[in-house]
């Protein structure tokens, strides 16, 4: 092969690659420009902070979902799981006030409970899927109903609220931050960076992609398929715990309506970001872009009030489809 042809090849590859890679980024940039044009406050510190901080819950969960989907799975239960974890956390913290008093230790304990509950919930899903070998869609559809129902039951149909004083102490975890960057944003960023690292640069990430691409090949290559698959659900469960830790200080409450449809948003963010729904290929940074796209659509619709609010959903739908058109692979290329 001559040098010249290699160069040309590189360019062709690059072009194709770039579309696929840059698609979601491009959509994001278009949205940002649109937002800035529609409203001068769009790029204000306040609005940017709001949007990023709000994205954190879904974002943190979607990072975990990226692993699950890459490994060929799906998890419909994350929204109810978040509600359930929040409920358990609040009940636990309230009930420990008499013993531990209101203070940092109690909040730390609450956080630990959130992670542990998330871990357990994810473990349960993972166990049924990878050991008992039930279709992930069904397991998590089932557990979605179970967690949602349990939190409603725990709250007696109403809302579980964190003790008022305790809440005041905990509140800064959502509203304050470091050097002007609020905590949820920081945590989301850390989770995303770690996630990208794990996906791209560790054996676990490789194994997830291998399992999603062809489980048989993974098995024949001495990959511990069950364990890795299980780990994706456990990781996701723990990240649901982390998301909840950020969520509870925001409004200090949890109810049957907490986290409704988060699963759909998280999955959508993952797919918009370029991860393949049937597994085999995933990218965490894409997911982050996907999450931001979804949050921005809402934000822009609120800021612009262009049309009947009844049509917000339609505009959302159109934008989501358009965002993905940009990154579609050219079919004839294969």
């Amino acid at each position, binding site marked *: 092969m001559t040098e010249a042809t290699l160069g040309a090849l590189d360019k062709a590859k690059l072009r194709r690659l770039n579309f696929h890679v840059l698609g979601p980024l491009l959509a994001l940039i278009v949205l940002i420009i649109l937002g800035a044009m529609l409203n001068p406050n769009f790029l204000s510190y306040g*609005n940017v902070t709001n949007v990023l901080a709000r994205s954190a819950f879904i974002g943190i969960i979607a990072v975990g979902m990226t692993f699950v989907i890459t490994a060929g799975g799906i998890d419909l239960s994350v929204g109810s799981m978040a509600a359930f974890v929040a409920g358990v956390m609040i009940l636990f913290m309230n009930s420990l006030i008499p013993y531990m008093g209101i203070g940092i230790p109690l909040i730390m304990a609450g956080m630990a409970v959130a992670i542990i509950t998330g871990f357990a919930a994810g473990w349960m899903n993972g166990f049924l899927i990878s050991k008992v070998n039930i279709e992930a869609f069904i397991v998590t559809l089932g557990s979605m109903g179970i967690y949602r129902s349990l939190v409603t039951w725990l709250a007696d149909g109403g809302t579980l609220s964190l003790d008022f004083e305790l809440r005041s102490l905990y509140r800064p975890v959502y509203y304050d931050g470091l050097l002007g960057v609020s905590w949820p944003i920081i945590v989301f960023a850390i989770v995303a960076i770690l996630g990208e690292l794990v996906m791209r640069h560790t054996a676990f990430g490789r194994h997830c992609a291998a399992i999603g691409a062809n489980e048989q090949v993974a098995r024949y290559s001495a990959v511990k398929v069950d364990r890795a698959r299980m780990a994706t659900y456990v990781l996701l469960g723990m990240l649901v715990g982390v998301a909840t830790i950020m969520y509870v200080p925001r409004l200090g409450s949890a*109810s049957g309506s907490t986290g409704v449809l988060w699963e759909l948003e998280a999955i959508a963010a993952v797919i918009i970001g370029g991860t393949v729904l049937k597994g085999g290929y995933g990218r965490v940074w894409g997911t982050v872009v996907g999450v931001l796209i979804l949050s921005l659509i809402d934000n822009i619709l609120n800021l612009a009030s262009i049309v009947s609010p009844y049509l917000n959903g339609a505009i959302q739908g159109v934008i989501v489809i358009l965002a993905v058109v940009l990154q579609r692979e050219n079919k004839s290329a294969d």
Partner: protein
Amino acid sequence: QDDTKTIGVAIPSATHGFMGGLNYHAQETIKRLEETYPQLDFVLATAGNAGKMVNDIEDMVATRDIDALVVLPFESEPLTSPVKAVADQGIWVTVVDRGLSQPGIEDLYVAGDNPGFGRMAGEYFRENLDEGDNIVVLRGIPTTLDNERVEAFTAAIEGSGINVLDMQHGNWNRDDAFNVMQDFLSKYDDIDAVWAADDDMAIGVMEAIAQAGREDEMWVVGGAGMKEIIKRIMDGDPQLPVNVTYPPAQISTAIELTALGLVSDAPVTGRFIIGSQLVTPENAEQFYFPDSPF
């Protein structure tokens, strides 16, 4: 054994604060009445959509042989003829809150007053704001009921010179309301008051205002009388001057009256409209029920 009577109760499931309260009151009332009247049986079904509610009602008739039905229609239109079919079989029907779209089907109607709810809030805004003041509105889930409230509210402030800057759906949900209010705050530099139309939404709204540090700039009126909100009115929170009631306990009234109609010889028919009331710091105490989940 023969004079055992069964009452079916079909209500929407506890998907948000108000309905949570309503579910709570329904269960409490049933428990209480089952103790008082051993000859009464109750069947409670909760539904997440109109179709499921129709299913529940069908099941009650086909398999539980109910003698009376207490129903809070998920939506008025789709429930009308199924409930009518029940009434046509000679089963006692009590309708709660959201009326059917055809008059005269039910034996008993117990309801809050949605236009009244909106009007009362609107009148308060009219009296307490000046011409040229700006407000934003958070609506509920797109439904007829929400439309009635918003129409009445709009009518009440008409001609007052109050500017409605924006209306968006907060879906009677804390998180949605928080997001929408955050964006309203980014968008508008001058807001004098917020009509949140529901106390769950009011909570999200207040949190967003607090985050922006604009508590002194505007006050908020929610609705339905959630205990936390009532408490703050009682305590004289300047940000929450008043509230408009829409009691979830209306379901208790409905079930009780129905039970009474079945066990006594004098059935209670007619319409019981539980008008919305304005909760003020002065009268708040009588609306405060610390044990209710709502």
